[in-house]
Structure formats: C-alpha cells, structure tokens
C-alpha cells in the first residue's frame, strides 16, 4: 500500500423513485444508499458486507458512476466524478473496472475469449495495431493464469472459475487503479473460490491495485480485506480495520453477523456464543425510524426508535453508528 487516497466518498446518496399507485404512493423513493462516507487508499482492499438489500451493489455502481447519485460526492484522485462531463468521465473509466458475480452471464457468448479480453483495448487504445492488441491480450491472460492458446475458445466451453478469470483479465488489461469486485466468488465451488481469491490478492500486490470487495461472505472478506465496512439498509453501521473489526465489533448488527457465520470446526461451533436475530431485513422502501437496525436489534431502547445514531470514531479509525456502544468516542462526527 502506498497510502495515497485514491477514492473519497462523501455523504453519497442514491435514491430510486417508486412508481405511484399500488405500493408506496406518489413521489416516494427507495433510499438504497443514504449518506455513505468512506475512503480507499491505493493498494488497499475495502470489504463491503451486508445482507441482501443493504445497498452494497448500488453503492459500488454509484461509485463507478454507472448509475446517477442523488447527493454527495465521489472524489476520485481529487476530482468529483459525478461532476465530470462525458468526455472527462470516459477518460477516467479506464482506471476503474468491475467484475461480477455470475462469470458466464457477464461474458458475451458470441465473442471469443480473446475478443472479450481485448474489448477495452478497442475502446480505449484504438491506436494499437492488431498485433499489439493480441500481445496485450496474451499478457493479460497469462497474468490471470489462462493459457494464451485458449484465446480463440468461447465462454460456454469454460467452467465458472475459468470464466471468472476471463472477467478478471478483461478488467486488468487497461492496468486500472481500482477494481470493484461484486460478489466475485459467490457462485464458485469452494476449491475454485480459493484460486480466484489468491489471484485477486496476487494482482493487487503486483499492480498496487485498490479493490472494493463486495460480499455477503464474512470469512472471505476477512481473508482478502484490509478494512471492512458494514452496510444495513443503505447506511454504514460500522467501518474498521479488519482484525480489529472481527475481534472487537462495536455495532450489535456486526456482532450478530459475525456470530451467524458458521466456522468449519464442529468443536468450536458448539461453544461459540450465538446472537440469533429475529425476523428478516425490513423493506428498504419503508425503513424503521431512528436507527435502521432498531427493529431487529437486541440492544434497542426507546432512543433507537426515535433518533438516528451518528457514525462516530472510537479510536484507531474504528467507526460505528449506535446509541449503545459502551466506550466513549474520540472525535465528533464530521
């Protein structure tokens, strides 16, 4: 890690309007991302965790400006991305890439592997000769552990793990600074998942790459991330350095999440304390008032249903948003 801040997200909001009529009524919006702040340094991995509907994928898309935001800033190397004109935005895109959960669905079935991996070159480096393009494609394939001989094959001939390597090669070919990984190993078999995690960590080391790693798998996130951010219904509940987060979670939701993840060790599993939350995630259309976690929180009291807690720093850059944290914050909210 070089430590230079690559990305600073400030009070980012993404709202989706709801159609009037049967549900929700006129003019209401889903606040899918509702005031998120974080920073990402060069060479760093920030793991973003949370359950379905927490806004993690929406957040990633707004960070890349693949969808419009409602408010806030995404400061990328000193520039507010959402304020750039189309041409300037296009120029920045080569430095930010994304890989998806379903490796096969994110590859065009009519294109050969080589053509898929080389597509970004045809968009951003039209000056390259066909020969140079081919050379760059082979180089990218080798980087992700694909034999260049496979360049003329098609996605359907490949397994899920191989397809994910193709997606990673396509993301890496422009030598980006940031790769957003949206559940990149969730659809893979365990033995293949480990190969892809190793590959991403290796690429990060070699190219000083920054990763936003979105996953619902807290074990994978612990392995790959330097810091972890927990989202719940569009809000940051907690953000902290990895080992600090897993050893000393401050937010009751983080605690519950961590305790819910089974560890592959039956003896340990029998002794672990378990916090079983009641119910499901509430609808993001109509989140609980006050703290959004209050409807499922084992610690909730009256204040939690009325006032939204601020995200406060509890030292060593460990921030959490809860009325019932037993220690004193070190700084006032931004």
């Amino acid at each position: 890690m070089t430590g230079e801040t690559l990305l600073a997200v400030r009070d980012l909001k993404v709202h989706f309007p709801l159609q009037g009529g049967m549900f929700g009524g006129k003019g209401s919006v889903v606040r899918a991302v509702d005031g998120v702040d974080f920073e990402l340094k060069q060479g760093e991995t920030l793991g973003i965790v949370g359950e379905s509907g927490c806004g993690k994928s929406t957040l990633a898309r707004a960070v890349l400006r693949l969808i419009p935001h409602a408010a806030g800033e995404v400061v990328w190397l000193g520039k507010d991305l959402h304020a750039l004109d189309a041409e300037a935005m296009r120029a920045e895109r080569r430095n930010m890439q994304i890989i998806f959960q379903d490796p096969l669905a994110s590859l065009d079935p009519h294109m050969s592997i080589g053509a898929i991996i080389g597509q970004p070159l045809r968009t951003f480096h039209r000056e390259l000769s066909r020969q140079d393009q081919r050379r760059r494609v082979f180089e990218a394939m080798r980087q992700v552990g694909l034999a260049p001989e496979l360049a003329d094959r098609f996605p359907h001939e490949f397994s899920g793990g191989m397809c994910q390597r193709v997606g990673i090669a396509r993301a890496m070919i422009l030598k980006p600074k940031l790769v957003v990984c949206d559940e990149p190993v969730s659809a893979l078999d365990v033995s293949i998942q480990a190969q892809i995690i190793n590959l991403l960590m290796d690429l990060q080391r070699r190219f000083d790459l920054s990763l936003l790693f979105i996953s619902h798998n807290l074990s994978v996130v612990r392995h790959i991330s330097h810091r972890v951010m927990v989202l719940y219904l569009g809000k940051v509940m907690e953000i902290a350095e990895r080992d600090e987060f897993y050893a000393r979670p401050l937010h009751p939701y983080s605690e519950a999440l961590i305790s819910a993840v089974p560890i592959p060790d039956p003896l340990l599993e029998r002794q672990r304390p378990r916090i079983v939350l009641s119910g499901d995630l509430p609808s993001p259309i109509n989140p609980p008032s006050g703290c959004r976690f209050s409807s499922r929180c084992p610690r909730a009291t009256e204040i939690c249903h009325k006032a939204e807690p601020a995200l406060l720093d509890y030292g060593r850059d460990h921030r959490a948003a809860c009325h019932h944290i037993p220690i004193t914050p070190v700084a006032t909210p931004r």
Partner: protein
Amino acid sequence: MSDSPVPANPAPPPQPAAAGGAPILSVRDLAIRFRTADGTVTAAADVGFDIRAGEIVGLVGESGSGKSQILMSLMGLLASNGHASGSAVFRGEEILNAPARRLDALRGASMSMIFQDPMTSLNPYLRVSTQLVEVLERHRGMTRAEAMAQALAIMESVRIPDAARRIRLYPHEFSGGMRQRVMIAMALLCRPALLLADEPTTALDVTVQAQILELIADLARSIGTAVLFVTHDLGVVARLCDRVIVLYGGRIMESGEATDIFGDPKHPYTRGLIDSTPRLDERSHGELRTIPGQPRAAQLAPMGCPFEPRCPHRVVRCRTERPAPQEAGLRQLACHEVRL
C-alpha cells in the same frame, strides 16, 4: 415443536435420537445413471450409508459430486432419463424405484424434501393455507377445520410471526427467509421420519441462515427426524451435522463423525476442501491452499479414483484401480495412499 397439538400418527412416530437404534434409512450400492445423447452418464456410484432417528448427516461436495441427484433418487424424483440402481431401505421398506403410488403416500407424509429455492415446492397460485391444509387432508384424513388448526400450529412452530394472518397469503408475499420457513413448515406438517434438505440455506442471508439451521436442529432433537443435509458449505456442516459424507465425482471419498472429519481429515480431497476454505477466525492473510484444476465433470467415468487428476498424493494405480473402502468404527475412507 413438541407442544404443538399433533393428532395420533398413523405411521409409527420416529424415535428420539438414540445411539445404535435401527437406521431410518439404509442406502447400499446406490448408482445413478442418465441416458444422454452422448451415452450413459454416471452421476453417482457405490454410494452407501445409514441414517438413524434424530441424526443429521451432511452430504458435502462441489458441482458434479452427485449430491443433489442422490436426494432426488431417494425421493423418486430423478429426471425421466435417469435411473437409480442398488437399494434404499426406508423403515424396512425398499423405496428405490418403488411404484409411484407408494412413493406418493410416503412423500410429504413420512419423508419430505426441502430445496434451495422454496418456490420449487410451493404453488404460486394457491394461498399457503390451501397448500398446507391439502397435505393434512390427504395424508392424515383430517377435516378442514382440524387441518387448518394444525397448519397454523406448524407455522407458529417454525416461528413465522403473525401466522394467523400470514397463512392466508400467497407465497410471493413472503420474504425469502419467511418463504423458506413456509416450505419447512410444509415439509414438517406430518412430522416426517426423514427430511431431505438440498442446500436450503444457500440463497439466504447469514442471519436468516442461522435461524433456519437452528430450526432444523430443533426438529431433529425434538421429534427425532433424521436429516440428510446437502451442502457445499463446510461451516454449515460443522454447525449442524453429526456425521459427514464427502462426495467427489459421484463417489464417497470419506465419511465419519463431524468432529473426526474436521479434526483429522484423511482423504486428500477432504483436506483440500478444508484448507481452501477461508475461516472467519483466521488471522493469517497469506495465500490460501487450493486444489488445482476444476471439479470433475460428471460424464467422465474413470476406472480409478475420481479425484486422481487433482490429487497431490496420486500414484500410478490411482488412475487404474478403484480404492477399496477402509473402515474403522464410524469412519470410512476410499484412498490408496492414506491409511485410516
């Protein structure tokens, strides 16, 4: 669960978990083959195991391991080009390839199945109440009012809040976790002696998964249902299962008590699986151990050990000679190179 008002059961009730009781299900030499345009594909072979009342057995494997097809064959639900051979004795009765009418009587009554996608077993056009009541009217001969009371009790027992109102809803009106509970409620209506579960928590969020796993564990404890639980998640196995069967390429690589399998994995594949799984409690962030190559495609049917192409310990005979199963107590192992 035990306090729900359940009327007399026509079938003998399952006995609570007791070491050494007669198995509820005995599977021997199970093989599953599919006829395809490219010839016969073997999805599973030489599969054998027992499950006793109240026991939860994990069937673990990756894509193509045959784990789901084993469940489908037991339920008599293989695709029309599939054929199962061997034997599966359920409470003294052969169920493999049993007549459809006999299977209809067993399914939903004394054996039930739950799936990853609850909509697989729920009818989207019918209210949940209608679907639950139908099972009880048909298998238990209850009146509509009796069945309704019983259905409501089951909904409450799987902790669906506000059950009296929700029972009138259609499946799509439930959230994913609640729908999974409805399916489990349906599977439990007749207090089955055997529950076959095919990755029922894979699509759920971890906090909801934790709730469903507790529910299944409760069920096995309180009414002695035997559970065969298919999953690829070793953490889930460690939390839930008493015993584990590790499958690769349609064959059993290793089986035994969960504490033994995780504490001292013998088979190179089991070791590989455990080593390549990142752990929530790990503090090292180095390279994960991996298993080279890809999970085996089902259509290849090598003579030797199916794991041979990916095995770090393989020797020449692994390719040509099937390892004979070694046995020691509850532990079984199929490997030339590792001794029990």
